């Protein structure tokens, strides 16, 4: 079954291009034909000339990034975007969620829907949609939310997994917290689950684990795409009976997002090291899994004090976890540590809370590679920070006139704040 990706805004289009690159690379490197075939069919469509075209729609309110992404793809020589699969304008969204959601989205609804429809019709079977977007700007966040709403309306039974990039805590965009709050509150009603990467966390991976000295957005985007590859590449699931899953998004959502109040998913992968070091390292599943489990429960993003008040504990409690193992000896890997009831909320049995997928095919250059997708308190603190800063700004009504100009009212803001406080409260009580 095939996944249609919708790339929205600068971030969405940059990340999306890296993602397709990694997926294509991985598919081509693999010795196993069934893996390659499954992967290609899922994310690409073959053309009469035999080249691979990404099953993607590119949307932006200005043309430069789309042009860049399309050119980069062509330059790779291995895949490209469809020539007509993109939509752009000239003026941008001005970092204004209201402009994106209330004006630009509706204005260009038909054009974007048509592009999506064409992509969907080219799929033998639709596995679902992955809108890729940031929450801080205007297009990804505003237009992205609107497009997600359209997808939900037109394809009510399809799975929608939004990939969201959260900005650095110390500003990229001054109104980023407003845009983020509005996006998340709306997506919570529309999306089946949201897979989140935070720039701050990825930045740390780049500096501390990958030893990159001068970090650029390109580095950040590659790490994000790499982790996403670990999630989205074909795997054998308990329900797939020995073949690569034909319903990856559905299975992911049912493994992790079983309750409508809990839809925020984070990703961790091991190993994570400079590619130059990989050849010199040996990996064992026990060591990798122990490390991953430790990362999960201690969750290095959290500072102890703040976390204590939010979670009444300081320990990252999970609702559900999905572990995906790729490479050598996956069948003998011992994963009991992730079934420990102590790491889960008491109102789910750990057998229900934990899911395990495997692929005997190695991913990228890694002989053994593990991906953990978690529905846990890992995002609680960043979410709380976002809401806190937005609320402080809202209290002074700063910048609100910019949103009112495009038909988002103070009541709309209050509704969004209320929804997210509910989410924060729910996650805060997971250990109860």
């Amino acid at each position, binding site marked *: 079954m095939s996944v249609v990706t919708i790339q929205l805004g600068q971030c969405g289009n940059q990340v999306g291009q890296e993602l397709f690159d990694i997926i294509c690379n991985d598919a081509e490197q693999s010795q196993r034909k069934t893996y390659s075939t499954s992967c290609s069919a899922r994310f690409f469509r073959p053309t009469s000339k035999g080249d691979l075209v990404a099953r993607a729609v590119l949307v932006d309110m200005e043309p430069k990034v789309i042009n860049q992404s399309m050119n980069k793809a062509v330059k790779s020589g291995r895949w490209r975007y469809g020539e007509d699969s993109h939509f752009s304008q000239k003026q941008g969204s*001005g970092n204004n969620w209201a402009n994106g959601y209330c004006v630009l989205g509706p204005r260009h609804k038909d054009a974007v829907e048509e592009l999506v429809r064409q992509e969907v019709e080219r799929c033998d079977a639709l596995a679902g949609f992955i809108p890729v977007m940031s929450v801080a700007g205007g297009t990804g966040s505003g237009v992205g939310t609107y497009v997600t709403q359209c997808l939900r309306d037109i394809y009510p039974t399809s799975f929608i997994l939004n990939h969201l990039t959260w900005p650095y805590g110390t*500003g990229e965009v001054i109104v980023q917290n407003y845009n983020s709050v509005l996006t998340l509150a709306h997506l919570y009603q529309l999306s089946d689950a949201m897979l989140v990467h935070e720039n701050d966390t990825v930045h740390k991976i780049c500096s501390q684990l990958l030893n990159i000295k001068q970090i650029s957005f390109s580095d950040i985007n590659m790490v994000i795409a790499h982790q996403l590859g670990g999630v989205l590449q074909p795997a054998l699931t308990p329900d797939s009976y020995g073949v690569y899953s034909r319903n990856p998004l559905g299975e992911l959502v049912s493994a992790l997002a079983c309750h409508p109040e809990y839809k925020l998913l984070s990703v961790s992968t091991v190993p994570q090291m400079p590619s130059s070091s990989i050849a010199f390292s040996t990996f064992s599943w026990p060591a990798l899994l122990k490390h991953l489990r430790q990362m999960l429960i201690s969750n290095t993003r959290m500072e102890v004090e703040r976390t204590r008040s939010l979670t009444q504990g300081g320990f990252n409690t999970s609702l559900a976890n999905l572990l995906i193992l790729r490479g050598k000896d996956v069948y003998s890997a011992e994963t009991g540590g992730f079934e420990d009831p102590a790491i889960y909320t008491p109102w789910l049995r750990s057998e229900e809370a934990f899911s395990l997928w495997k692929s005997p095919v190695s991913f990228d250059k890694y002989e053994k590679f593990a991906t953990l997708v978690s529905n846990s308190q890992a995002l609680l603190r960043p979410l709380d920070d976002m*809401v806190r800063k937005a*609320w402080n700004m809202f209290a002074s009504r*700063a910048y609100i006139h910019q949103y009112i100009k495009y038909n988002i009212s103070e009541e709309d803001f209050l509704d969004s704040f*209320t929804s997210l406080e509910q989410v924060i409260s729910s996650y805060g009580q997971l250990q109860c």
Partner: protein
Amino acid sequence: TVCGTGSGLGTRVLSLLEEEFPDVCRIVTAVYPSAEDDVITSPYNTVLAMQELTEHADCVLPVENQSLLDILNKIDAMSYGTKLGPGVKRNNCVTSGGSRLSGAQKPFDAMNNIVANLLLNITSSTRFEGSLNMDLNEIAMNLVPFPRLHYLVPSLTPLYSLADVSIPTKRLDQMFSDAFSKDHQLIRANLKHSLFLASALMVRGDVHMSDLRRNIERLRSSLPFVSWNQEGWKTGLCSVPPVGHSHSMLALSNNTCVKATFMELRDSFTKLYKKKAHLHHYLHVDGMEQSIFSEALSSLTGLIEDYHHLDVSKSRLQRDTPRLRIATGSSS
């Protein structure tokens, strides 16, 4: 500008643009008068224009002739100074032509070059690619928290005019520090001693995002930001630097220091207005009434008060606003 055409016709065009194209962002570069100015009635023209700018522009980038002159003098001094960097050419456009800047004859070409530079930097992201684009309408969105408070202090580094002057490139971090030093601002006001409402950094050239972040972290502690915008930074990264440089930066700051500029302006206006000096020249014109003067004055006064109000909040101890409380019960 302070003359009749720029200030009068210019602002009329501005309000026409607003009528015809209400959704299109209007960013105005406005040259403000310096102390020794040629036009005696410049305070009138400026205050009258300011009312229009406050009402009809989305953002205004005020530029003072004196600051431009000071910058040129610095460029001049750098090229005549003992430490002549490898990139500085003698007999370049600024310093040749003989005149050391004496004040009697202003080098308007060179001064205008600096303002042209400002405009080039603002539009660089629209014209070139980069890893984090920053459009004109994003500038207005992020830097204007309240509609009338849209006067943004520009500062440019490195210092150079579009003429063939190359000042030796300083270390990257120095570029960031310079952006917040008085020497690089295009109006004479003290950013560091007043309150920041928001700041935008448009970086061009061979600069990585981690450099940008590192410098913001470094500078934050010395730059006072208003309580509800402690992380009020808008950033842009454009890959293409200006000609002849490996990197450059434009900072636009919404800062209460403009209050001082406006207060001076109000004072010079009042000096003339109290005596009704030259007023008849204006009132002779059809459609011009004295009430327009008093309205313009009260608009300016209101603006000064708005900035003052925010300034005063600087010293107050700020705590987080109490959050919405959610009734907790069983969630299913």
